[in-house]
């Protein structure tokens, strides 16, 4: 028995504990230094930064859910998801700025939306020829046409319609670009996704704008808010409530859908073993389409909240890619394939970007970390992939031996 080595035991370093306790401790020490020793910032500043981080993190979480759902089910890093988010943001912008629309456009748009409604109804009823599905589609068409051609829209209505529109876009992307590649090498799929991303980006440049777009749907939610705490005044806006709450509602709805409904169970089953799910009678293609629908809808919601949060939309080529890739990083950090992981990763990334840069402000010769803000996500992504590809709560989905 002398030869028995305990190599596994030697490697059992409690990284979880070290990082989980060490990093907050370091942050605490840094805050203490800045507040009490250097006296450069007050506690309210950090509270504000934390609230902002929560806002941003919620947005990343919404986008990250789309990545994680699609990856979970077809093992595709949907490179185009950031662009879907971008389309969602711009769609909502057009909905609340341009409505009511001229009749032809209203009809065209409501046809698209009605098709989305029939798709959803079809998922429920199982057949396109079901009278309920057809009736629902018809009613939706008329209702949407009426609304779009006659009245303006507030941000919430715009958000819901933008979600539906973008959801349809997600389904179309899957149908046109990804579905022909089922069973193809994953790399081919990834290249296609990159191409779709590029396509949407440049189409966005043509159809939308090449400039910064102000995003002001005229809601009181964007008003400033300030409140005094013991250590000073926190400056923020009402969005600090809105964004996390909307996110929480959507995430809760998604979780309920996935765990409680038949289709949600089919989705989980397909993610675990698509072929067997098919053998149980699950129409896997339809389940995948549903995944794209839901993921894109969440991304669109994220787009609306993003617009509210920043008050403007960047040009299409920039708007999609950076939040997109950051949200992907969030999904990986949390553990790709896991819904709670996406939320955790999103919030964590939000904190990293907003809170950690607040910890290292520009002082004297030191330029601060703000200019590296955008690289954090990439750096963290690389580190996580190298050290723990399964993320915080996920299981290992990397290729098997």
């Amino acid at each position, binding site marked *: 028995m002398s030869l028995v080595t305990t190599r596994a035991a030697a490697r059992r370093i409690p990284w979880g504990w070290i990082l989980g306790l060490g990093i907050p401790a370091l942050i605490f020490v840094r805050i203490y230094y800045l507040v009490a020793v250097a006296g450069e910032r007050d506690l309210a500043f950090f509270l504000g930064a934390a609230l902002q981080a929560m806002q941003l993190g919620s947005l990343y979480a919404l986008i990250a859910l789309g990545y994680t759902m699609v990856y979970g089910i077809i093992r595709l890093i949907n490179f185009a998801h950031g662009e879907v988010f971008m389309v969602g943001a711009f769609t909502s912008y057009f909905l609340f700025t341009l409505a009511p629309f001229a009749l032809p456009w209203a009809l065209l748009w409501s046809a698209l939306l009605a098709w989305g409604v029939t798709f959803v109804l079809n998922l429920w009823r199982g057949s396109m020829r079901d009278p309920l599905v057809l009736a629902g589609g018809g009613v939706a068409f008329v209702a949407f046409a009426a609304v779009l051609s006659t009245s303006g829209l507030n941000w919430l209505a715009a958000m819901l319609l933008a979600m539906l529109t973008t959801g349809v876009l997600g389904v179309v992307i899957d149908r046109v670009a990804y579905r022909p590649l089922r069973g193809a090498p994953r790399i081919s799929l990834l290249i296609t996704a990159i191409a779709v991303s590029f396509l949407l980006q440049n189409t966005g440049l043509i159809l939308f704008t090449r400039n910064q777009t102000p995003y002001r749907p005229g809601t009181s939610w964007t008003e400033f808010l300030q409140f005094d705490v013991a250590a000073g005044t926190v400056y923020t806006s009402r969005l600090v409530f809105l964004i996390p709450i909307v996110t929480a509602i959507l995430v809760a709805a998604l979780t309920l859908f996935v765990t409680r409904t038949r289709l949600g*169970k089919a989705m*989980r089953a397909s993610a675990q*073993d698509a*072929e*067997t799910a098919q*053998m*149980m009678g*699950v129409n896997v293609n339809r389940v995948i389409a549903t995944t794209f629908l839901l993921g894109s809808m969440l991304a669109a919601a994220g787009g609306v909240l993003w617009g509210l949060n920043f008050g403007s939309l960047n040009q299409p080529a920039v708007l999609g890619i950076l939040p997109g890739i950051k949200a992907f990083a969030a999904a990986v950090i949390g553990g790709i394939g896991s819904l709670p992981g996406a939320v955790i990763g999103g919030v964590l990334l939000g904190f990293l970007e907003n809170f950690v840069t607040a910890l290292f402000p520009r002082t004297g010769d030191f330029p601060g970390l703000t200019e590296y803000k955008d690289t954090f996500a990439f750096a963290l992504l690389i580190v996580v992939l190298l050290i723990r590809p399964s993320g915080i709560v996920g299981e290992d989905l990397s290729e098997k031996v």
Partner: protein
Amino acid sequence: MSDAAQETLLELRKVTTHYGPIRVLHDVDMVIHPGEMVCLLGGNASGKSTTLKTILGIVRVSEGEMVFRGERADTLTTAQRIERGMAVVPENRRIFPKMTVRENLEMGAYLRNDRKGIREDVDYVVNLFPRIGERLNQQGGTMSGGEQQMLAMGRALMSRPKLILMDEPSMGLAPLFVEKIFEIIKTVNDEGISVFVVEQNANVALSIADRGYVLQTGEVVLSGPAQELLHNEAMKKAYLGDV
């Protein structure tokens, strides 16, 4: 319901299938009668699994036709075939590891909408396999191989099938358990459900089946009553001896 007692439950007529340009099955003729247990034997890469997938509609028939319960079935989707009474116990069990045992069973009844009936059938399966009953809320992946095999069979029964297709039920199981599994298969079969078993373990399969087919490179080379096959010289030479 077409219980007009057709002579055949499932019939393959000169079925040929392709993976892309590559022909996998070639002019396969096969019949399963109601209440019968049929086994399909063959070595590695002989097309056994493909036959099963073809019957289930996961692989498309490129030539020939397939009739299930008197209806032309080769243009139906997998879901439609399951609705019409097929169920499968896949190779290696393939239960959903991160769903609970109950959810796994419910996936077997995916195409049914009657909640009450599903609950009854869960009870029925639990009756049949008491060990599953003890673990209804446990995750599927935490069960042993034998329990998973039971779960997979229970899952197949959940759709109230007329025909159960089984892919290598003995694979990876201890010999004692293999016998037990085949006893269970026999029990299921005795209830009037037709069973189609794809097996490499020819001796066990033939000892309880009614009839058997032997597949080689995508073609049926031998067929007949199980007892005959078991003692067929050519069969022994070509197949049994190699196992």
